[in-house]
């Protein structure tokens, strides 16, 4: 008891306890989402709006009634999943928002047919958890599992898989609540071709209630990493696709001043003919360290060079490690957290045909600065992924086999800062279009209507 009264003992308690609290302060600090009492925003916190009503979806009949009612009252309805889209896609000013997150049951899993029927508000994470005991995995998802199925299909998302085509093509069946308020079951051979419009249709063609997805095995892959020059990449990648040894792939291009857009590294997930027997889904790992490293890179200049060197070291260290398909589809995302008042970090993605890549990168050098340390508009990362030619959806971004450049960028939110960012991104989009490319629609809409029409002529 006397010990408790010793100042050194109490001091140690304080220090240890403070260290525990420090370690447990959540990295994710942004506040966003649906709120009836205050303004609604999406992941970026940009474009706040007041909505008339938020409806939590929990039963089909209620949803149907709400859609019919809104039609009668001439109200606008929008659909929201996890709101990771970044351009206010999930809400209208004074509109009704259908919050799909509670519509999240796994309805049926057919181990032999390798299919799963799942409600659209479920996350990929939940689906992966359901698949794990059966040794099954998804065919196409984003690189992270933090999105809803409805939200992902509505943008026709893509990720690291290079074998199964577009996400839309992995859907066998869908239950749809149409804008007129009808509930219908849609298959691939539906004469009205609803799937063509709904997938990649941003919630404009009805509410996806559930889908039946095709699955594959939760194979074990071996990671193979390499460093390349940007000019070597198109031929490297074409060979990789033809050789059929690799299931999944992505790459990064340097945005550090001393190797700016000249150096790249690639990460391949190669087949091993083995299956996973450990049955575990990895949790987010090394988040604090990754965040510190990214924060270093965010400073620009020499520190961005250091960040690039650290990344190259890291990829060398993971060479030859084994990973399951499910785990390769659930990368960390929390370390990207950035909440600084007056500034915003956003994504953009540009697609260019594989063959046009090298010249395109040379042109991009004219648009962004190698050293953006003192600029308001900064580019922190460019990840490259493959988007196979998509003949299926109407609003398709991959008109031929494309490489997608996912760009993580940052700028201020003052009017002149947004104007400056807009003008840079519009120039970048022009160059992309000149090379036969397109841009991705889930993100903040910097582009002009004209650029939209050129990218999506079927609209």
């Amino acid at each position, binding site marked *: 008891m006397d010990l408790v009264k010793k100042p050194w003992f109490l001091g140690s308690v*304080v220090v240890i*306890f403070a260290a525990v609290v420090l370690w447990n302060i959540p990295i994710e600090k942004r506040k966003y989402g649906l709120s009836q009492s205050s303004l609604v925003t999406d992941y970026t916190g940009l474009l706040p709006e007041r909505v008339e009503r938020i409806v939590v979806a929990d039963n089909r009949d209620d949803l149907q009634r709400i859609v019919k009612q809104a039609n009668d009252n001439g109200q606008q309805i929008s659909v929201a999943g996890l709101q990771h889209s970044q351009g206010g896609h999930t809400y209208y000013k004074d509109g009704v928002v259908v919050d799909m997150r509670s519509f999240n049951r796994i309805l049926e899993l057919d181990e032999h047919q390798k299919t799963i029927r799942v409600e659209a508000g479920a996350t990929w994470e939940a689906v992966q958890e359901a698949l794990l005991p059966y040794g099954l995995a998804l065919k196409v998802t984003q690189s992270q599992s933090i999105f809803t199925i409805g939200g992902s299909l509505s943008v026709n998302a893509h990720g690291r898989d290079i074998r199964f085509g577009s996400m839309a093509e992995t859907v066998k069946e869908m239950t749809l609540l149409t804008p007129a308020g009808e509930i219908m079951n849609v298959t691939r051979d539906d004469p009205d071709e609803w799937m063509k419009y709904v997938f990649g249709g941003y919630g404009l063609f009805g509410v996806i209630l559930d889908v039946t997805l095709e699955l594959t095995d939760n194979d074990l892959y071996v990671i193979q990493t390499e460093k390349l020059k940007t000019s070597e990449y198109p031929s490297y990648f074409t060979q990789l696709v033809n050789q059929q040894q690799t299931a999944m792939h992505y790459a990064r291009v340097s945005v550090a001043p001393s190797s700016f857009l000249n150096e790249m590294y690639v990460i391949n997930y190669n087949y091993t003919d083995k299956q996973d027997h450990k049955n575990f889904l990895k949790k987010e790992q090394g988040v604090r360290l990754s965040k510190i490293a990214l924060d270093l890179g965010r400073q620009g200049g020499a520190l961005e060079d250091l960040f690039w060197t650290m990344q190259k070291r890291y990829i060398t260290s993971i060479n030859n490690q084994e990973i399951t398909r499910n785990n390769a589809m659930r990368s960390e995302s929390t370390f990207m957290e950035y909440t*600084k008042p007056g500034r915003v970090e956003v994504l953009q993605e540009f697609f260019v045909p594989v063959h046009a890549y090298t010249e395109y990168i040379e042109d991009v050098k004219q648009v962004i600065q190698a050293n953006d340390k003192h600029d308001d508009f900064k580019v922190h990362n460019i990840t490259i992924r493959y988007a196979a030619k998509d003949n299926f959806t109407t609003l398709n971004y991959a008109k031929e086999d494309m490489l997608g450049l996912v760009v993580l960028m940052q700028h201020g939110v003052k009017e002149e800062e947004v104007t400056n960012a807009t003008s840079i991104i519009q120039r970048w989009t022009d160059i992309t279009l000149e090379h036969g490319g397109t841009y991705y629609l889930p993100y903040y809409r910097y582009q002009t209507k004209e650029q939209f029409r050129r990218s999506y002529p079927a609209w």
Partner: protein
Amino acid sequence: MNDKTRRFLPLVVTVGQVVIFPYYIIWLKQVSLTFTLFAWFFAAFSFAAAWGYRIFQSKKNKNQSFICLIYLGMGVVYLLIGNIKNLSEVLPYMVLLLQVILGLLQGYFRAWHTEQDTYHLHAVHHYLIVGFAMIAFSFVTIISPVVFITVFGLLLCLCGVWEFIRERKESI
């Protein structure tokens, strides 16, 4: 006059701490992200207060209390709280540090206060004054709790300076 301030400064500080408490809680809740973190910040404050309390109690020379520095320290913490609103990413880390410092100083102050002759007299006055002050404050619309917190920080700094002058005069 010297004797008066010696008697009244601790009363001002104790009453001020209780009166500012609701505003401080509102601010802490706003910056805490989750209830768990809010509760943990409080726990950190409490442990640090126990530490501060024992630091004073274990002092050999209790006449050398440095109480003016304690007032100043607490004042600076409240002033910082009023001015760190634009650092949202590092804010929880700063809050933890401030909670520990504030706990330590308040614990120390309380241990010192209990050893003053006027402590028991203050206890009754302090309850009454707090009651009346809270009724008065209920008619003031809060624009932002940090405004009050900043004002209290300034007041504590003034108390610190005053106490320092008083001690200097006493030693001469």
